[in-house]
């Protein structure tokens, strides 16, 4: 969280994350280059650079795409999500080296502009086996570039979280483009099935994780909740004892999710969607009196959905009531940041 924009708000965890990231980059690059030079001394510098950056960027892309579903499957992976944008920007930089150098290598110093050559040297757009695969890689690189340059919170704020999130979902399109770039390019030249098997395993791993995470989310949405509004519009949510202290119960309504937090003998309800990157606030905790998002630690006061000053993020709030030991919520959202009186939990209520 920040009240003003800085290039990077460094903290200890980010430094650890980036140190490990750089170590992995170096480990891979050193191994790939040195073993290549030993086994294939005939390889040219240009090919070595193009292949090292290509394989490294594709590997990083797989890791990036695995983190989201892993974090949804188990919160222990959330630290990998915390600084994922550094991983994304790094991946773009590596991919950009590959892309720019490939354009120079294959298209520069010719009789037409390199970008014209990129799209028009091979015009077999109607053929799958002869398809100009380099154009696919270029389009993927443009998507990665848009994601990298808008990765800062400045763009998140100015584009709006919805637009920003939609833009960054383009990573899946980019992945598909890169996959086809590889399949219709170097795979058609290489003869070993191992490379195709690796590509297939990567794809299966990503599909498997996304399906598993999606199923888990769906199951959570279906868990023990019936949407039956009472006469006053309130909906029965759960027994009070089902909400642990400083934690929340998430209610999935047809069009939105509401997080009902229990804290200091109070119950408050806010939108489950964090204003930062749409993180699930209901999976967060109350820390220092604030709802804390599990993704990046953005905080909101539970009774008004506003971030504590000087921060300005706000989420919608809802009315909550406690009848006996049963928690009810009203599905009507109040404008973001609207203060709503919390439901008071009687002090003689015993936690089980």
């Amino acid at each position: 969280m920040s009240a003003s924009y800085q290039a990077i708000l460094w903290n200890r965890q980010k430094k650890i994350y980036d140190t490990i990231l750089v170590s992995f980059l170096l480990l891979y690059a050193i191994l790939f280059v040195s073993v290549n030079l030993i086994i294939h001394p005939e390889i040219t510098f240009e090919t070595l650079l193009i292949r090292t950056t290509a394989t490294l960027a594709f590997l990083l892309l797989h890791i990036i795409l695995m983190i989201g579903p892993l974090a949804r499957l188990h919160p222990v992976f959330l630290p990998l999500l915390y600084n994922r944008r550094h991983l994304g920007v790094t991946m773009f930089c590596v991919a950009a080296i590959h892309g720019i150098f490939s354009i120079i290598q294959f298209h520069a110093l010719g009789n037409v502009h390199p970008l014209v050559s990129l799209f028009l040297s091979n015009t077999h757009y109607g053929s799958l086996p002869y398809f100009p695969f380099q154009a696919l890689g270029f389009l993927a690189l443009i998507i990665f570039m848009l994601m990298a340059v808008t990765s800062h919170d400045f763009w998140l704020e100015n584009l709006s979280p919805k637009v920003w999130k939609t833009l960054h979902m383009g990573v899946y399109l980019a992945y598909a483009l890169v996959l086809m770039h590889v399949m219709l390019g170097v795979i058609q030249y290489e003869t070993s099935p191992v490379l195709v098997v690796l590509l297939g395993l990567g794809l299966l791993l990503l599909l498997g994780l996304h399906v598993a995470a999606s199923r888990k989310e769906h199951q959570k949405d279906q868990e023990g909740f019936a949407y039956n509004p009472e006469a006053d519009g309130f909906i029965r949510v759960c027994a009070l004892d089902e909400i642990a202290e400083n934690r929340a119960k998430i209610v999935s309504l047809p069009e939105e999710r509401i997080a009902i937090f229990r804290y200091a003998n109070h119950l408050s309800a806010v939108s489950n969607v964090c204003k930062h990157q749409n993180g699930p606030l209901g999976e967060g905790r109350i820390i220092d009196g604030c709802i804390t998002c599990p993704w990046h630690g953005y905080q909101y006061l539970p009774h008004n959905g506003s971030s504590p000053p000087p921060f300005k993020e706000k989420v919608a709030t809802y009315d909550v009531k406690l009848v006996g030991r049963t928690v009810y919520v009203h599905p009507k959202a109040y404008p973001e940041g609207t203060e709503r009186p919390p439901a008071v939990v009687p002090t003689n209520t015993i936690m089980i």
Partner: protein
Amino acid sequence: MRKILPPPDEFYVGYLPEAPNTTATFLKNVVIGIGIVIAILALILVLYQKKFSTNHFEFGINTTVQGYLYTDQVPRIRVPLGKDFHGQEIYQTMLLVGFGKFGASEAIAQLEQSTGVSLHGRFVALTGSLIYGDGKALLQIIPQDNPAERLLAAGTSPMGHEETLVLQSKGETLLPGEVVDSKCFFGVMKPGEGKPHRSCAVRCIAGGIPPILKVKQANNKTAYYLILAEDYTMVNQEILPIVGQPVRLKGRVIQMEDWNLLLVNRQSLLSVTSQVNEWPGLLALDKRFTLCQSE
């Protein structure tokens, strides 16, 4: 899975200095695991690459060769190597190419302008970067490396050398192979063939670099055919649509000392390549040229 993963009770906040203990311990193991996987993948990707050719480009190294420079057909220099057992002069023909993705015609034109003489058939000392492999050689030349006085210092052309150039017809044939650009294939790029290199080969051939038909033979050796039209002129523009893919070319083979020429019919080539442009996946076959999607 549940036995491996820690209980989901801990709560991680990135900007706090310490990660919860169990989470930190688990992630350390994850990081070690990722490191091992990365190392293994790097090795697999290197080990299972296709081997690279031993062709070589002497980038940044200039070599001077002396021989007869020809500007007709394909720009080349015919370098006398000495006499054979029968006392016949033997030559090696080195194709000439320009800097970048260009043929040597422009460079030769500039050399003729600077020397003020026609260089065709003249004995010259030509300086450039050697490109060679599999018994073939090319020379990349740039005018700046060839001042007029040094270029012509080798002497005047001995009379009658052109009569020693024997063109031997080997008949018509249909050859399966791949059209590559000679400069990249013989050492500038690795790989200088196949799908990954296709666009570059198109650019090079469009720029005037001589196209070669590379034919894999039954004995696992490779034969190379310099592709020209039947009138010995270049067909670089016409051949572009079929560069870098499996192809069969029909034509008359002529042996020109250490090079084989494949003389193809320009009109038939145009006919087939226009079909390639229209719908390359469904090629109609031509009597003189046929294209295959795979060999």
